[in-house]
């Protein structure tokens, strides 16, 4: 795995698994998007699976969305929340919707409009992952680690430590600790108020 921070690019010669192929099949339909959260850790080696892939896209109007929906459906995906176009768009304006291959709810894409500054930062600073059979855009590693520390449930140390989000954060930190931008990382740590959780990475 080669991470070129300046070029915002990771070259990954990994063998693809079913999850990777599912994601590539979907993102092939999109120009603008960023993948965030759990699948980022998995793509970069974490030894676990997931039932959903979180994906953010810029907001679009109804017509643009229906055009995209047509393409998504044409590729054999369905929205598992509802089949009615209007309802899908109304839901998407409020919260995430899910797309899966027809008749197979797992795995699925959790599809969401970019809403927050953190979403926007992820999108504007995405890292291109170049695989042998395609490309994907993922959230910056610094933000991913901090966000995963934030997502972990509260509780006693032993409970927090066994949380999958802490494990995801630790995995990314251990794999990329020599390469991440420490200043950027600490800014997110402070913004998300997870300084006390840094000890779970060491």
């Amino acid at each position, binding site marked *: 795995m080669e991470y070129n921070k300046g070029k915002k690019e990771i070259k990954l010669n990994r063998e693809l698994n079913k999850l990777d192929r599912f994601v590539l099949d979907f993102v092939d339909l999109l120009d603008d998007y960023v993948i965030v959260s759990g699948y980022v850790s998995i793509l970069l080696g974490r030894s676990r699976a997931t039932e959903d892939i979180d994906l953010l896209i810029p907001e679009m109007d109804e017509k643009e969305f229906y055009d995209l929906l047509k393409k998504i459906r044409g590729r054999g995906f369905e929205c598992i929340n509802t089949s009615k176009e209007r309802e899908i768009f109304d839901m998407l304006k409020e919260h995430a919707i899910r797309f899966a291959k027809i008749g*197979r709810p797992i795995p699925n894409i959790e599809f969401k409009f970019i809403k927050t500054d953190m979403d926007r930062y992820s999108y504007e600073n995405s890292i291109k992952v170049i695989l042998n059979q395609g490309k994907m855009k993922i959230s910056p590693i610094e933000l991913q680690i901090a966000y995963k520390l934030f997502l972990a449930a509260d509780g006693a140390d032993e409970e927090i430590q066994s949380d999958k989000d802490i494990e995801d954060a630790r995995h990314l930190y251990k794999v990329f600790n020599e390469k991440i931008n420490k200043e950027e990382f600490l800014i997110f740590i402070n913004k998300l108020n997870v300084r006390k959780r840094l000890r779970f990475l060491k």
Partner: protein
Amino acid sequence: MKVSEVKVDLEELKKFKIQNTKERLEFIDFWANYIKTHLDEDWSKQQNILIDSQIKD
């Protein structure tokens, strides 16, 4: 054995939980190091056994 006969030692289980968490974190460190010191093709092949076994074709 009946359900009512099963004794649960919460203290013992708590120790197990702490040890289990420690071992999980140790494995994450081991695996992260493995990724850094082995070819992508190598570690991904192993990771894929886990992932592919959980997703239907």
